[in-house]
């Protein structure tokens, strides 16, 4: 079962997304604190709780975003599932491996999210990748790496499931 700290982590990540992320927005690219939160839960608690956290936290963001309800929920659910593979120790727990894996994970999440969101917006796939997905991924990963410096167990630690 997720501990109180994980529930607080998710609530904190949602609050950060709604209160702090807009302050860090550069050319309408902002870090995705909710993705960081659910990946941290998935890394620590494994896939099942990661999926539940991703689904609920994504849904919460969707309800505030005045857009497609269910989209963040869907993409974050899938991201948490794959993040859980690291939680399940299927990847060697070296910093570079995890950061490399998270880069691919965040990029896949952002491409899926922005591709669905931009349907009807007349933006090409490559524009979505270069203009929106890749910058968001790099920005989010930068924050996750910085958080890892402060709280190493977010990436490295693993509590009993």
């Amino acid at each position: 079962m997720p501990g109180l700290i994980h529930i607080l982590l998710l609530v904190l990540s949602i609050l950060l997304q709604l209160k702090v992320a807009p302050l860090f927005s550069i050319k309408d690219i902002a870090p995705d604190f909710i993705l960081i939160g659910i990946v941290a839960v998935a890394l620590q608690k494994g896939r099942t709780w990661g999926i539940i956290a991703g689904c609920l936290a994504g849904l919460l963001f969707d309800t505030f975003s005045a857009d497609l309800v269910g989209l963040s929920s869907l993409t974050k659910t899938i991201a948490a599932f794959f993040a859980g593979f690291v939680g399940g120790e299927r990847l060697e727990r070296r910093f570079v491996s995890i950061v490399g894996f998270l880069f691919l994970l965040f990029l896949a999440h952002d491409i899926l999210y922005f591709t669905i969101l931009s349907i009807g917006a007349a933006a090409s796939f490559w524009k979505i990748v270069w203009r929106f997905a890749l910058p968001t991924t790099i920005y989010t990963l930068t924050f996750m790496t910085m958080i890892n410096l402060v709280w190493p167990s977010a990436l490295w630690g693993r509590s009993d499931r």
Partner: protein
Amino acid sequence: MRSLNEWVSYRRDLFTLLAAILFSLGLLWSNEGLQIQTIQRWTLSGFGFLLEKVSFLSEMNSLREENEWLRQKNTELMLANSRLKEALNENRRLRELLDFKETSQLDLIPAKVIGKASNSFVNSIILAAGSADSIEKNMAVVTAQGLVGKVFSVTENHATGQLLLDRNFRVSAMTQRSRVNGIVKWREGNRVALAEVPKRSDVAAGDTVITSGQSFFFPGGLLIGKVVSLSESEQSMFMDILVEPAVDFTRLEEVFVIRSRPINPRN
């Protein structure tokens, strides 16, 4: 039966994933449904309260109430000024109608911005005011600088506002100088477009774009922004007009919801 239970238990992750994906897809397919609105109201009520509680972090000065009052007065003056400009233009065009009189009663509800959900395509704000303050869905949201957006969903004490920079936002607009009508919608980044304007219309860079008043929800004369560039292509029937919004969306702290649109007694 036991082996089935063991198999389900073994595949718990996949079943959870499948259930979560089906749940999300179900939500995506029923976006206009009553259930979605109910979920939105619940989360807005719960998290709105929480967001409001942590807002003290951003309140660094003790002159908040005075600031709020000044902002309200400023916005009222801006709207009055905007209405006067509109009235002047109207007067020129309708000079022969000497008895023309417009009673415009814009009632402003102050609302503090307690959160912002934004990314490259989605832009909305969370307001610490709701139906208890007489806010209703689709009411216009403004600041002293101009149009911010509209109310998207409302609970008793909170509301979400869809910004001008949201990909789904549309408002009927016109250029103040030449009265050319179009639809303002988000283009990219911090820019919006004045769309549906036929080629060779009288539009120039620097023209002020305002709400046309043709929309049921937005009073006429609200400042939207200025035309920054325009072009024509052979492939399109319409001009490509880029507008820079008057509002600085990165500094939204306090907004006003317009409770009612201008009332014309002859309508």
